[in-house]
């Protein structure tokens, strides 16, 4: 069974139908790249997965657990949604680091709050029983993550003193700290100067292992081809084409995919 199943997601803003019956699935360890022109609904799809938008219809299932069902979803409790959205991690286009906290504090803040809550309700957090031990674990994990994104020496810096690329790498570490099943990237390099995109893309590439499942909305076609196991091309709220990078990028069938990709080739080669 697939790790993630998205069935017939439909989302409108007023009369504007942004997602029209989107369905796809993703296996554990796969990287999915979503490409398409601006306004095609890529970002909205990602936001629906993260509960930042609520679809009108459809179903989202992770590991067999139904997270969202448009038919029965009337008013879910905030606490339930909070639990469910933790299956997904999210890296934003504009980083959204917390400016008043140091890099390390940005990473440990949410896990610490979670640990406090869990210790209170179940008396245990990741195998430890006191907040002090939990804090130590969280800190160790955060340092490992910072090393992974290559920013160990910046742990006490404030976000305003980092470059955009460094900020985005911190944002990636922050998302990873909660150990999400699926990590989503919403155009992670679109807000960056061209010379800074490489470091972020390399970090994302480096995250690819057999059990890390990722969804990347991107305009970096080269990157999508290198990293993705699967590519979805979206246009006007529908999946116009999907398949392996080989199929979608090197040998597109849909005329719209062809048009989109040829525009890219003109612009970037």
């Amino acid at each position, binding site marked *: 069974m697939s790790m993630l199943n998205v069935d017939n997601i439909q989302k409108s803003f007023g009369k504007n139908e942004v997602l029209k019956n989107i369905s796809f699935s993703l296996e554990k360890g796969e990287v999915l790249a979503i490409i398409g022109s601006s306004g095609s609904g890529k970002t909205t799809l990602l936001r629906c997965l*993260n*509960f*930042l938008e609520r679809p009108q219809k459809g179903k989202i299932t992770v590991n067999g657990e139904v997270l969202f069902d448009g038919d029965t979803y009337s008013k879910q409790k*905030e*606490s339930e949604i*909070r*639990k469910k*959205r*933790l299956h*997904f*991690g*999210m890296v*934003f286009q*504009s980083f*959204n*680091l*917390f*400016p*008043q906290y140091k890099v390390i504090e940005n990473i440990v*803040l*949410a896990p610490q*709050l*979670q640990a406090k809550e869990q210790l209170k309700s179940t008396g245990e957090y990741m195998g430890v029983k006191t907040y002090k031990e939990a804090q130590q674990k969280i800190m160790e994990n955060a340092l490992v993550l910072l090393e992974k994104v290559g920013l160990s020496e910046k742990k006490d810096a*404030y*976000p*305003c003193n980092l470059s955009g690329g460094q900020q985005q790498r911190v944002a990636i570490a*922050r*998302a990873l700290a*909660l150990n999400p099943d699926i990590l989503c990237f919403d155009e992670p390099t679109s807000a960056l100067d061209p010379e800074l995109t490489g470091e972020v893309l390399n970090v994302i590439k480096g995250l690819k292992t057999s059990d890390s499942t990722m969804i990347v909305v991107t305009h970096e076609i080269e990157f999508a081809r290198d990293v993705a196991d699967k590519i979805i091309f979206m246009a006007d709220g529908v999946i116009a084409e999907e398949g392996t990078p080989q199929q979608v990028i090197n040998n597109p069938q849909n005329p719209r995919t062809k048009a989109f990709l040829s525009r890219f080739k003109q612009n970037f080669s």
Partner: protein
Amino acid sequence: MDSFLNVTQQLLSGFGENCYIFIVTLLLAIPLGLIVSMGSMSGFKPLKWLTKTVVWIIRGTPLMLQLFVVFYIPPLVSNGSFAFPRMNAALIAFVINYAAYFSEIYRGGIEAIPKGQYEAGQVLGMKKSQIFFKIVLMQVVKRITAPIGNEIITLVKDTSLASVIAIPEILMNAKDFSMDGLIWPLFYSAVFFLAFCGVLTLLFAFIEKKLDYYKG
């Protein structure tokens, strides 16, 4: 020389009243303003419009008039059986008036926080209250320090308005001297205000510097 000491003593005792109004108003209006700002940002429309109307009335009428209303209206409508003591009436008017102004500063500060900050908190599984207290509040404080400082300095001088309901504050005492033909105490009273506002200015510069450890 005797008269200088005497005047100073009189003015100081009056200024004590000003300081008392100032401190109580600050202590009460700062939290009350936050509650009012929550009302004017509420998703519940009737509460939002009620709050906005009250803020409009308070900001749209002179504080002097509000002092009269709080002090004179209760005895008028109760046929003299109920009235606030002078100082309480002054405090009620000042606290409500300043809470209205503070609430608008808070609202501006809170609404200026980018949506991305809330969304980042949400995707990290935080509760609404955690997002507000752990993420948003500190950023709001930084943004509103300068306008709040401005308002607080205005408050120092507004406290003299309490003289209209015969609270013996500094300007009223100074004016009493002028009635007896002694004009200079009136101008001398400025020294007290200047000293107080000078201290506040330094204090706010210090706070702003303290909050300057990050940008954004």
